[in-house]
């Protein structure tokens, strides 16, 4: 398939734009849904009208955001068909199942209970309303779960749950349970939802601080802030804890991503983390020392091995090792992987050519070669049509078919993501994460001591912090998605092979169409949010 490089970049840009715009709303929805449920629970338990007012005000802000998040998500789903149809066709069995469940279960659950929660205050009993608000929150978060299971598959596909079928040329599901319960997806889910709770808590704390600075709605603001500070403190600390496990999963399942995140070109035992640095753009094969790839850096020795491998002196492969290979640790060169991948690709073509001719023997020969085990050494040469049936981990030629598409192994830097954007995105996200912990510890103690209403410095910092979690979550998403490049499905399907071969003008036209729509929607959303915040809690009545 010939793909216009410009077309590929435009399709990527359009998807990135939609994802980033959609992701402005998603974490807010995930977090606010539970904060609103907390407020309403307190209202039902105490029976006090002031808690009902607090619930309704924050629910109004949540509802405005909820509608836009929903509509931008639908655009996303369409793009899989319009711009990424090859991807959808090849891996639709595995990727489509969680998306479909999200649509059928979580989406309908959200839609049903959103209606009762937003519009049913005077129509249903207190108990039914409270249950609806909780079920809306649970439904929203379950939506995220299914999306992240689909995304987890893209980050860490495994032949334990997906098998490449030579007859259909598609990756097909062989174990649904392993697909949904793989730790990569579950860790990702916990990291995303806890980051979302932090984001919503910073928002509520910041808006409450804004009212306190203006000496408006003081009792409302103090109570709202107390809930946000408590939930935010738990959530922000949890983000760091589960972030550690996330880093462990990434280090061990996506070696090129972690090497790019940390600018590690030459693998080492007891690898350090670069806490602060300015990476240089250098071809990996020209690097002879990790020091030559930085304009400036401050390192923490052994920290990457400890966090990424849970071992003080463990070896972490660098980008150069992943291109040249490192026999000492069992890593093959890119050339070898590409050669085996090309053989699998040739087998696939030979199988279908033989099928057209009705040559059964040739079909069987191609099929046997396609499913031949190439790793581990003790099983080498064995034919295994379904790797999920093997007790041991195996790699067959079929599992490396994606490498067969990297024709230009003389430009091996195409096999790993760009270092600078992934490094900066990841490190800014981490730095902001630590700031949120400090902010919530400070705010929580201040609230418990009854000093928050008089601490103008803390209030100002809380207001200034409101946009920061959006930057942190967007950068987190960027480090995950840019870090996965050049693959849509890591190690299996290259991005360049996933795109729809359509005319460039089509993608450019829809890109600008969506851009205009997003700008208008974004301005409308902000204007409505600012108006509601300016009017204060009474605006919710």
């Amino acid at each position, binding site marked *: 398939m010939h793909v216009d490089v410009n077309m590929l970049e435009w399709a990527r840009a359009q998807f990135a734009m939609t994802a980033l715009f959609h992701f402005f709303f998603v974490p807010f929805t995930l977090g606010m849904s539970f904060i609103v449920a907390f407020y309403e629970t307190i209202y039902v338990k105490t029976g006090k009208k002031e808690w009902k007012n607090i619930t309704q005000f924050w629910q109004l802000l949540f509802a405005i955001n909820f509608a836009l998040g929903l509509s931008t998500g639908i655009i996303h789903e369409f793009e899989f068909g319009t711009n990424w149809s090859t991807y959808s066709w090849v891996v639709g069995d595995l990727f489509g199942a969680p998306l479909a469940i999200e649509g059928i279960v979580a989406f309908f659950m959200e839609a049903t209970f959103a209606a009762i929660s937003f519009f049913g205050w005077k129509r249903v009993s207190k108990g039914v309303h409270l249950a609806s608000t909780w079920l809306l929150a649970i439904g929203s978060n379950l939506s995220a779960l299914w999306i992240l299971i689909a995304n987890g598959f893209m980050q860490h596909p495994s032949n334990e749950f997906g098998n490449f079928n030579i007859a259909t040329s598609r990756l097909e599901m062989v174990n649904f349970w392993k697909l949904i319960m793989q730790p990569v997806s579950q860790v990702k889910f916990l990291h995303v939802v806890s980051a979302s709770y932090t984001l919503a808590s910073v928002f509520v704390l910041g808006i409450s601080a804004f009212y306190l600075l203006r000496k408006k709605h003081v009792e409302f603001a103090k109570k709202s802030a*107390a809930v946000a500070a408590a939930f935010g403190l738990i959530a922000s600390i949890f983000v760091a804890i589960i972030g550690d496990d996330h880093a462990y*999963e990434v280090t061990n399942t*996506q070696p090129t991503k972690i090497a790019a995140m940390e600018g590690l070109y030459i693998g080492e035992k007891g690898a350090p983390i670069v806490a602060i640095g300015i990476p240089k753009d250098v071809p990996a094969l020209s690097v002879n020392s990790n020091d030559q790839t930085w304009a400036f850096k401050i390192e923490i020795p052994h920290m990457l091995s400890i966090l990424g491998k849970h071992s003080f002196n463990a070896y972490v492969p660098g980008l150069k090792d992943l291109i040249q290979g490192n026999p000492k640790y069992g890593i093959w060169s890119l050339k070898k992987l590409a050669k085996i991948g090309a053989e699998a690709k040739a087998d696939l073509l030979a199988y279908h050519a033989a099928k057209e001719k009705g040559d059964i023997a040739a079909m069987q020969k191609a099929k046997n070669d396609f499913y031949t085990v190439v790793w581990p050494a003790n099983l080498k040469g064995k034919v295994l049509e379904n790797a999920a049936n093997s007790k041991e981990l195996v790699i067959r030629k079929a599992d490396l078919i994606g490498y067969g598409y990297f024709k230009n192994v003389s430009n091996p830097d195409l096999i790993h993501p760009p270092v600078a954007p992934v490094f900066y995105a990841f490190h800014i996200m981490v730095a902001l994460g630590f700031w949120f912990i400090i902010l919530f510890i400070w705010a929580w103690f201040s609230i418990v001591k009854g000093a928050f209403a008089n601490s103008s410095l803390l209030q100002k910092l809380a207001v200034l912090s409101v946009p920061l979690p959006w930057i942190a979550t967007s950068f987190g998403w960027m480090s995950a998605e840019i870090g996965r490049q050049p693959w849509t499905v890591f190690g299996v399907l290259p991005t360049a092979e996933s795109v729809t071969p359509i005319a460039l003008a089509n993608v450019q036209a829809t890109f600008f169409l969506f851009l205009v729509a997003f700008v208008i929607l974004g301005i409308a959303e902000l204007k409505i949010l600012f108006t509601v915040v300016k009017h204060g809690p009474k605006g919710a009545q």
Partner: protein
Amino acid sequence: MRKLIALLMVFFGSFLFANEQLMPNGINPDVHKIDTTWGVILFFIWPILIIVGYKFVEFTLKKSGLEKDL
């Protein structure tokens, strides 16, 4: 208690003796193998996080004196 000590020894032992042999593509085989038990445990951390979050909210409101009728 013995089980706990054994678990802690395995955990801290892993800091000294990690499996260094990787797969041909640089992936760690121990982590690549899908551990659904760990996946299920991780999933159930989510409701625990929400419950702990809410209980801490109630504790904060009581301790700060902002809401005592909880």
